[in-house]
C-alpha cells in the first residue's frame, strides 16, 4: 500500500469533512481543525508530480484563502455569518479538489495499466 497516498487522501478528505461540519454546526473547534487540515492538504500538494498537480494545488489555495479570512472573521470580529459564508466557498473548492483527486487516481490507474515497462 502507498502510505504517502493514504496520508494525502486522508488530509484532503479531512479538509472537506471538517469544513462541512463547520458549515453545518458553526463550532469554533471545527473551524480551527478545518484550517489546519486545509493547510496540510495544500502542503501535501506542494511540488506534486501528479497529472493534475497544478489544478489540485490551485483548488487547495482557493480553500485556504477562504478559510484563513473565515478564521479572522470568526475569532477576531465575531462575524459568524461571514465566517460561515467563506467556509461555504472553501467547501466548494474542497469538493472540486476531491473530484480532481478522484479523476487523477483514475488517470494514474489507466497509465499504470497501459505501461509496457
Amino acid at each position: 500500500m502507498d502510505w504517502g497516498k493514504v496520508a494525502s487522501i486522508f488530509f484532503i478528505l479531512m479538509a472537506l469533512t471538517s469544513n462541512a461540519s463547520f458549515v453545518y454546526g458553526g463550532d469554533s473547534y471545527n473551524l480551527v481543525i478545518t484550517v489546519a487540515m486545509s493547510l496540510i492538504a495544500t502542503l501535501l500538494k506542494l511540488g506534486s508530480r501528479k497529472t493534475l498537480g497544478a489544478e489540485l494545488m490551485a483548488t487547495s489555495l482557493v480553500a485556504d484563502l477562504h478559510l484563513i479570512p473565515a478564521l479572522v472573521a470568526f475569532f477576531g470580529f465575531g462575524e459568524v455569518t461571514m465566517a460561515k459564508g467563506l467556509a461555504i466557498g472553501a467547501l466548494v473548492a474542497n469538493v472540486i479538489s476531491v473530484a480532481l483527486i478522484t479523476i487523477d487516481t483514475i488517470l494514474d490507474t489507466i497509465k499504470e495499466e497501459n505501461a509496457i515497462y
Partner: protein
Amino acid sequence: MRSFPSRQQGDFFDALARLRPPLILTILLLLVGTLGYMAIEGFPFVDAMYMTVISVATVGFGEVHPLSTGGRLFTMGLIMGGFAVFSYSVGVFVEVITRRDIFGLFRIQTMESRIKSLADHYIIVGYTTIAQELARIFRRRGMLFVVVEPDAERVEMLKHDQVEFFIQDDYFRHETYRKAAVGTARGIITSFENDSDNITVVVTGRIVEEATGRDLFIVSTCSNEESKVRLERVGADYVISPDTLIGNRIGALALRPPTLGSRSVLEQVAFGETTDLDIREMLLPEGVPMVGKSVRDSDLRRLTGAYIVAITHEGRRPHINPSPDEILRAGDTLMVIGTPRQLDTLEHLLRPTAAAGVNGTT
C-alpha cells in the same frame, strides 16, 4: 500533450517534498496546542494560539492566564513535542537549502519555464568543445539556443560559460526535446566525438519531428566518411567532418596565406565570425517581383543595400560577379553580401507573401 518533469525539475520537486513533513508536523502541533488550551483552560482562540506558539518556540514569555494543573501538564508535553519538531525541522531545512541547493534548483525550474516560450532556436545536443565554440558564435550573433547535456561535469562548464538555457537530461529521451521546446525549434545540432551518439540524436530528432510536425534542420559532425553516409541515411540534413574541414582550411591558408594580419576579414566573414558583414545564399522563389528582371532592374541594391556576388541558375555552375543585365529566374540561388540587416531585408523581400504585399502596394 502532458509534459513530465525533467531530472532537474524532479530534483526540485523532491527537495520541496522533503520540506513537507516538518511543516505538517508544525501545523499539527499548533493545532493540538491551540485546541488543547481552548479545551483545558477555556482560553479564547488567539490566546490559545499565542500560548502554543510561545511554548513551542520555548521563548520563555509569561503565561497569558494562570494555568491549572492540567494546563501545566499539557504545556510540558507541548514544549517537549515542540522541541522535537523544531530540531527535526531545522535539520531538514538546512539539508534542503545546503545539500540539495533548493535555490539553485528553483533557478533551473524558472529557466526551464522560459525555455518553453522560445521559438526559432537551435537545440545543441552535447556540450562538446565544438558545441562550446558554437555557443560562443551563437551568443555573439544573438541567436537563441538550448544545450542538452546529461553529464554533471559538463553542466558545470555550461554554468561557467554563462550559457543562458540548458537542460540536464539524457539526449535519447523524447521528453528532453519537448523540454527544449522542439515544437518551435529551428533545428538540432550534434557534435559528439562518438558517431553512435550522433546517430542516436539524429534518429531521436527525426522521431520527435514526426510527433511534433515541425520541420527540423539537423546538423551533425562525423569522424569518417562511412559514418557520414550513415548519418545522412538516418536523417541528418548536413554532416560535417571536423577533420576534413580543418584540413581544407589549413590547405586554403597554405595556398594563399593572409596578407593582412593573421586573420583576414574575408575569412572571418566566411566563418560567420564577424557581426557587421555577412554572406548568405538565398533561393529566388516563384512569384516574387524580381523574377524575370535583370539584376539592374530588380533594384535590389537600392531596396536593400546588399550586393549579389554570384547567381546559380538551376542545375548550372555558379555565375560569379554577374553583369547588371543578367536575368533573375525563379529557382536561382543568389549569393549575397551585406550587413546582417541588409540581408534580413532581402530575405524578407524574397518571401512570396512579402512579395505579394509589395506587388499590392506598387
